[in-house]
Structures are given as C-alpha cells and as structure tokens.
C-alpha cells in the first residue's frame, strides 16, 4: 500500500520537474555539448578535423591566454568586491532613509534596467578625451590640468571598465541586500545595543551574520556573471590598449570571430567554464563549512 503511493508520489514529482529538464536538454545541453565537441576539432570553415586535446595544448601554451586569464581574474575580483561593498553600503544607506524610499530604490536600480551595451556606449562618450563631459567637468573644476585619456592608457582603462561595470552591477546586489536587511529581527539590534555595541559592532555581529547566506548567493551569481561578461569591455576598449583590458570573453570572441578558430575558442570557453565551476563549488562549500 505504502510503497505504491510512494511510487505514485514520485511519479507525480517527476512530472513536475520534467518540463524544465526537457527544456534544458534541448535548449541548453545541446549547445553545451556542441561546444565541448568543437573544442576537440580543428575547424576551417565548413570542414573540421578531429585533433583531440591539441587545441587545449595550444591555448595553454599561449601567452595571450594566461595574460587574459590574469586580466579576467583581476577584473572579476575588483568588480565583485566593489559590487558587494557598494551594494551593501547603498542598501544600508537606503534602509535608514524614511522619505521617498521607492523613488530612491528605483533610481538606484536604473543602471540595471538599461542594456549593458547601451550603458557602455554612453559611458564611452562621457569618457571621451576631447569631447567627453567627464574631462570637461574635471578640467573646469580644476581637479586635473589636462584631459585624461580614460580609455587610452592601460591603468586608467582598466580602472574605467571596472568603474563602469560597478555602475552596472551594483543595483542587483543592492536589491538583494535591501531584501536581506529587512528580514533581520529588530530584537537582535536592540539586544546588541543594550550590550553596549556601537554601530560598527552592531554591523559586524548582527547584520553580517544574518546576511551571510545572501552574501554567498549574491557573490556567486555575481562572479559567474562578471567573469563571462563581454559587452562593457567589448564596446569600450575591445580589449585594448595593448591588451590591458583583454578579459577571457574578449579573447574568446576575437579567436572565434576574428581569428575564425572555433576549435580553439571552444577550448578557451571550456577552460573558463572549468575555472568558474571550480570556483563556485569551492565558494559554496566554504560558506557551508562555516555555517
């Protein structure tokens, strides 16, 4: 009796999760499989030869790949740290404001609502050395003597794309943090205040622990999104100057569609996927352990 209803229950359960699995198989796993398979081929236009792991060997012995990986890691780390810090900061700021909460929240969410490529195009202009508003304002206020080449010099270009990506990426984190802050029970703050904790200690011992789960989720999603992000750097610097902003997605795009070496590009993609997967699993496990 019990086992048949249990089996029936299982079957119903499968029915519920079947649609999404079918969808994933068709629309996601096929292209993924294709990408894996392509990484084992040397592709020349419409013909290809099986070369096993030769593409991987080529990629891993290419300086350009390691340089790109370094830039990607630096870019992702800076961006995610800034997203989390500023996102949390803004959430704390907005949480304490009484007036016009919704309007402010929408206002701070706006960068997220515009397509990244459009946002990047606008910033490209704002940072233009001769005609851009940023230089104009900085010179007018006397903050700098001569217009800066925001995207023309390696260090500045890197900083600029990180800044623009921060502009793009903070709203999402802020939203998650705002939600999280609202669930922290008042009593915990009151108890801490009674124990004589100051603002910083209240933040450290009440706010942060309560937000831990959200912080882990937000940072994992953010890392995955940022490390594969192409639009902002693609539009603003295309990886220049002199490779200072050439992150892996840019290298991949150039290899695939400028170099027409699809096999190699697929290998780069798979390597990137492996790196991100490893990171995500470690990250999640580390967060679990601490719990």
């Amino acid at each position: 009796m019990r086992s048949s209803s249990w089996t029936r229950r299982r079957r119903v359960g499968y029915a519920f999760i079947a649609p999404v699995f079918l969808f994933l198989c068709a629309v996601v796993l096929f292209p993924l499989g294709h990408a894996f398979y392509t990484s084992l081929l040397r592709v020349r236009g419409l013909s290809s030869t099986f070369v096993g792991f030769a593409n991987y060997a080529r990629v891993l012995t290419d300086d350009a790949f390691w340089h790109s990986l370094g830039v990607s890691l630096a870019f992702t780390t800076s961006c995610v740290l800034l997203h989390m810090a500023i996102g949390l900061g803004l959430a704390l700021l907005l949480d304490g404001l009484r007036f016009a909460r919704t309007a402010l929240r929408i206002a701070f969410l706006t960068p997220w609502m515009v397509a990244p490529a459009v946002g990047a195009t606008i910033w490209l202009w704002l940072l233009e050395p001769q005609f851009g508003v940023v230089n104009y304002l900085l010179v007018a206020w006397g903050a700098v003597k001569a217009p800066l080449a925001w995207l023309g010099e390696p260090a500045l270009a890197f900083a600029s794309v990180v800044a623009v990506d921060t502009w793009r990426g903070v709203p999402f984190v802020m939203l998650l943090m705002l939600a999280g802050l609202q669930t922290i029970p008042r009593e915990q703050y009151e108890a801490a205040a009674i124990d004589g904790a100051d603002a910083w200690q209240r933040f450290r011992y009440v706010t942060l622990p309560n937000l831990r789960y959200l912080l882990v989720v937000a940072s994992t999603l953010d890392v995955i999104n940022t490390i594969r992000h192409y639009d902002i750097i693609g539009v603003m610097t295309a990886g220049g100057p002199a490779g200072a902003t050439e992150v892996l997605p840019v290298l991949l795009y150039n290899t695939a569609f400028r170099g027409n070496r699809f096999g190699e590009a697929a290998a780069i993609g798979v390597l990137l996927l492996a790196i991100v997967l490893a990171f995500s699993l470690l990250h999640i496990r580390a967060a679990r352990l601490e719990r």
Partner: protein
Amino acid sequence: MRNIRKLAAAVACLACVAAAAQQPIVLQWQTANLTESQYEPVWKATIAEFEAANPGIKVEPVLVARKDHWTKFVAAAQAKKAPCIVTVDLTTAAYNGYLMPLDKYWNAEPQEFRNAWSPAMLSASKWKGQLYGLPIWGGTYAEIYNRDLVTKAGLDPNKPPKTWAEYASWAKKLTGNDQWATAVLGGKTDTTTRVLLMWIWSNGGEAFNADMTEATFAKNPKSLEAIKFYLGLVKDGVAAPAPTTTNYLEQTNLFAQQKIATMRNAYWAIAKVNGDNPALKGKVFVAPGPANVPNAPTLTSVAASSISASCPNPEAAWKFIKFDAGKKWTVERAKVANWMPTRNDMADDPAFKADPLLAQFVTIGNNARSYPLPSPIWAEIAANDIVDAVQRALLSPEKTEEIFRDLDAKVTKKLKDV
C-alpha cells in the same frame, strides 16, 4: 462542346503549372552598408528597380550593425544558410569555404562588360586563381586638409606638403592652442592598420613579403623608419592626444570640430564632416599623402559582392550583382555615400566631372594598392596583432623596434600556419 471543355481544362491546367512555377525566388542580401543611413535611399531604389525588371526574383535585405556583420554571416554560413549575396572579407570567406567561385558566370559575360574592371582591380577579388566577387566600390585614402586652418597658419593651400620634411614643418605650424596638426590612429579597428600601411609604403617600405608568408615591419628598415616617424608625431606633440582610442569616428569628429587641421581619410569622411559642421562645406582640400619616394601608392579598400556557397539560386544572385555593379548605381553610390567606383569607365561621367573633390580622389586612386591584403587571416592580423603592436609602441615609444620585431615573429608564425 466537348472540345471547348477539353480546351478549358487544358488552359486551367497550364495556368496551375505556370502559377506554381511563378513562386518568386527570394535572394537575401547582406552587406554592412545597408545600415548606413545615407545609402538607404539608394539601395531601396536598387532593389525596387531590379524587382520591377525581374518579376520572378525578390531581394530581401538583411540589416545588421557593421560590427556584427561578420559574426552574423559566419553563424549562418556554418549552418549553410548564409544570405545569397554578401559583401565580406573575401579572402577569409573564400579560404573558409563560405563563398562560391564566380568564374563560370564571369566568363559567360560579354567582353565589353568584363573590360570595365582592370585586372589589378579583379585580382583583389581572387583567391587561388578563382574569382570570388565582383568589385562594387572602393574607398581611396588621401590627406584631407582644413583650408581655413591652413591659411590661418600662414601656409599655402595650393602647395600641400609632398615630402615628409615638408609635412613635418606644416605640422609644427598647424599645432597651437587646443589644436593639433593631425591625429594618429591607434584604436582597436583595422583603420589603424590602413593608415600605418600607407605611411610604410610612402617610404618605399613593405609590411609583408610578396606572397604574404612573412611580415617585415621591423625587418625592412624603411618600414621601421616610417613607423617611427608616423607614431612619433604623437611624441612630437603635433598629433592629438589619446591616440590609442582614436578610430575613424574620433578622428573625423576632431576634424569636424576643427581640432585637427588634417586627416588621412577617404572621401566618405567629408560627408560626415559636412553633416556635423556645415560651416566646413567647401572648405576642405585634398592631396596625396606626403612621401619620400616617387609614385608612392595610396590605399583603396575594395568591397566586392560575392555569392555564398550555400546559395540555391546563384544565377539570380549573379543577375542582381551585375545590376548593382552597373553605371547608374555606381554614380548614385558615389554621389550619396561617397563610395568610389571600381569600374574604369566612369571617368567621363558628368557626375564625376562636376565634383572636383571626387575627381581628385579618382585621380589619386589611380595609384593605389587594394585593401584588405590577400591573406585568409587578415582580419585577425589587421584588427588584433598590428593594432596591439601600434598601441604598445604608442605607450612605450622607446621600445618601438623591439615591439615590431615581436610583431614580425608573431605574424610570420601565423602566416606560416595557414
């Protein structure tokens, strides 16, 4: 009675068959220029007239942003569903098997049609001896000057600089308060490479060996000298700052806003300049770029119409390509979009005689080398490797020779790998 009925049935049957046979052939046409706003009325008219003259054929334009044109084409070509008529980087596309050879259609044409294109022009559209495209238009590069700024600096617009030395002295005089003589292109597009090549050629140097298996940017001393001179314009202060982010668009903006007095560009830039700053209409003059050797060639980028390998109706596609390459549309393109003819029988056309600037560009274009250079990996070399070297050299000028030696090695390796 029965005979009439039989006749009616036969006629009805024939009509059915005829109707079925009348399914129009649909040709897709993809070129990055379809999204150029000034060209729009011309291509719409081209399609309309062609369809009117060929009732069984419809031409469907595929609009795509220039920067994504190749990506879209390749995605479709890989699935054997590329548009029939395309204008793409010919050598690369042919090498990858995306295009159909056109020799059999070309050879079937009457001699007088074929005479309109010189062998030199056609060779730009050949790969391994086969013709893969019909050249439709080109862009010839020359040095474009702002007449007002030149006269203000006390220079004679009728005597533009012919040698590097003259150019250098002009450049010094044209640099002043919030104004520079010119702009060095160092942005991450292949226009950077185009201008660099012209400077190399103007010194009698070569960037590659004859059969494109070796790069000689640093190997050829004349090339290296040219690179140092051209990139050195920034160091000398006569070129606008931030060259590593200067592409065609930024350069033309600078010229239109009168921040630079001269630019190395093609005729199409003038339309943009006039659009942005109507006060400059008629105030530009043109001359070949300065050179240290006699008869230094300039550069003409050639765009050809090709038929993709998977096209099910190549005869119809060839019909359209021929139509589009005709004199009428050549003139329209030149007038509206400033694209130069590739035909050699246009010199007497009144449209070309009426516009002195256009005539000058045509004359300058008579001594030009075609671009892109014939290598199947040109897209990558031109837009990635060479640009990377230029950017590095602009950021560390003292390392120029070393940087270009590295470029030679890297590119030669890639060329040998093809």
